[in-house]
């Protein structure tokens, strides 16, 4: 039942989310000649999560220099403004339908209804919380996700606590260990349930080792103490099945527990539009032009799968914008796809299906993640006819995305694509 009839705005391309994915897609869309590009963002400024990532390490691939998050964002915000991209801020999209109708809300105009010819999803992801990992204990103040703590420290200017334990060794947790230490807090330890860290080696060195912060691998938090405020946590070693070994349990006093335990693509709107979601990535299933299962709706960035480098987000957003441009040009012509699947050693491959003839570019990017760390591995790309390509990769880690490109000519006429990863002994060196 509809209570009010809204005047519907007709727009050519609407991008939901003004972070690195949305801004990169908007800039590329304007460059490709799409005249009417609207970006909708719920915050008061564009830039997304980059605004609070004040550390360096962004842009090495895209700009060939090492930038901070705000610097990376500002380059795209500036380009978007110069190219005439319209950015609607403080506006929350609350509904998306499969025929690309968008309902959004803000405090100036109230409800807004938009009919878009094409839509790019760029909503990013959110952090897993305590509820997602089931830590027993009371529910005192002082438990934050690492990203929330980062926002408090770098944007709002508040310290979340004085004595800190961090659960999970993802990059945001490591970055916050250093940041809080520099701001005068005592970070007691970083606790990681896996036998290896999910963070970049440089972050382990420059955020933990530089400050003498212990990284406890194969450990987890088994209890949180304190009724009003966190007073400490019990940590314990885990066995090979990740079950805590209670004999090893010990109490660590602290007033704050930060959680850096993973990210989840934010796909509530995608589900409303009946977009097919990949259970492994948590994001939409897409084809060669980053188009979801719903024609005319595209996806890129962390809403599609969680990235470790913003540079790859930009690359993917450029593909999504080119995809949207080709869709606007061909009027949503139907294409047949061949399946792209992950084999041994890989958790997923993106895109999940392709049409070789309808590729917007001569080369297709494929993004994938390994199931475990491997010092040396061989990546095989196979079709029903056999191996198309193979290459040796060094120091593969699940936390570091693998990106490879295939030429259209390498894939012509094939009926399926399978990617797999085989660990190779490090002692055997073969000539290439």
């Amino acid at each position, binding site marked *: 039942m509809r209570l009010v009839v809204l005047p519907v705005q007709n727009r050519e391309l609407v991008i939901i989310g003004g972070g690195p994915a949305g801004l990169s897609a908007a800039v590329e869309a304007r460059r490709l000649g799409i005249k009417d590009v609207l970006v909708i963002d719920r915050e008061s400024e564009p830039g997304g999560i980059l*605004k609070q990532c*004040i*550390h*360096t390490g962004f842009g090495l691939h895209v700009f060939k220099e090492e*930038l*901070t998050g*705000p*610097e990376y*964002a*500002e380059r795209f915000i500036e380009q978007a403004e110069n190219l005439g991209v319209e950015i609607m801020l403080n506006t929350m999209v609350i509904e998306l339908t499969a025929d690309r109708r968008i309902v959004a809300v803000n405090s100036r105009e109230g409800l807004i209804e938009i009919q878009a010819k094409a839509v790019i999803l760029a909503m990013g992801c959110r952090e897993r919380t305590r509820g997602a990992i089931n830590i027993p204990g009371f529910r005192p103040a002082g438990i934050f996700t690492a990203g929330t703590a980062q926002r408090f*420290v*770098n*944007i*709002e*200017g508040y310290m979340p606590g004085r004595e800190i334990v961090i659960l999970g060794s993802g990059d945001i947790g490591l970055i916050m260990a250093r940041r809080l230490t*520099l*701001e005068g807090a005592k970070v007691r330890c970083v606790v990681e349930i896996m036998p290896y860290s999910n963070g970049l*080696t*440089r972050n*382990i*060195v*420059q955020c933990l*080792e*530089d400050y003498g912060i212990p990284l406890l691998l194969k450990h987890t938090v088994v209890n949180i103490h304190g009724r009003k405020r966190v007073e400490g946590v019990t940590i314990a070693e885990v066995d090979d099945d990740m079950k805590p070994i209670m004999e090893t349990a010990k109490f660590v006093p602290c007033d704050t527990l930060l959680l850096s335990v993973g990210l989840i693509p934010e796909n509530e709107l995608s589900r409303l539009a009946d977009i097919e979601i990949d259970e492994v990535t948590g994001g939409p299933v897409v084809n060669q032009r980053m188009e979801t299962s719903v024609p005319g709706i595209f996806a890129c960035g962390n809403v599609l799968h969680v990235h470790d480098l913003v540079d790859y987000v930009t690359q993917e957003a450029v593909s999504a914008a080119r995809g949207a441009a080709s869709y606007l040009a061909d009027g949503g012509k139907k294409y047949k796809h061949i399946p792209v699947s992950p084999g041994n050693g890989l958790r997923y491959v993106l895109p999940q299906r392709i049409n070789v003839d309808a590729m917007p570019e001569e080369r297709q990017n494929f993004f994938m993640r390994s199931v475990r760390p491997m010092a040396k591995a061989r990546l095989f790309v196979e079709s029903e006819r056999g191996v198309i390509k193979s290459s040796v990769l*060094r*120091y593969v*880690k699940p936390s*570091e995305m693998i990106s490879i490109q295939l030429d259209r000519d390498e894939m012509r006429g094939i009926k399926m694509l399978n990617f797999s990863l085989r660990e190779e002994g490090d002692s055997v060196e073969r000539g290439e």
Partner: protein
Amino acid sequence: MSAANEERTVTCIVCPSGCRIKVGIEGSEIVRISGNQCKRGADYARAEVTQPMRVLTTTVRLEDGRLLPVKTASPIPKVLLFDAVKELSGVRVKAPVKIGQVIYSNVAGTGVDVVTTRSWN
């Protein structure tokens, strides 16, 4: 400071190999570097043992209370990071600022400028 013989282990971050490089020190001399797979690793380990350098990123306040992200324009000695943060904690900056603008010079006596990493109106 002990001038005795010692061996220090450095995790190299030049490439993803992450070599654990051992650096032998006698007195104030580096006498031996091992465990590296390339020359860049040896250079990195030498610098880490003699004078490790880091880019500092932090925030300072605008006069109206908003936070302004900043960084050192080049790496500064690691041992001076805390001094630099302390020095910058009292700094107040008048808006508007442009990205890359110098807001503080010679931080912690390093001769290095501190620059903004975003614009604020």
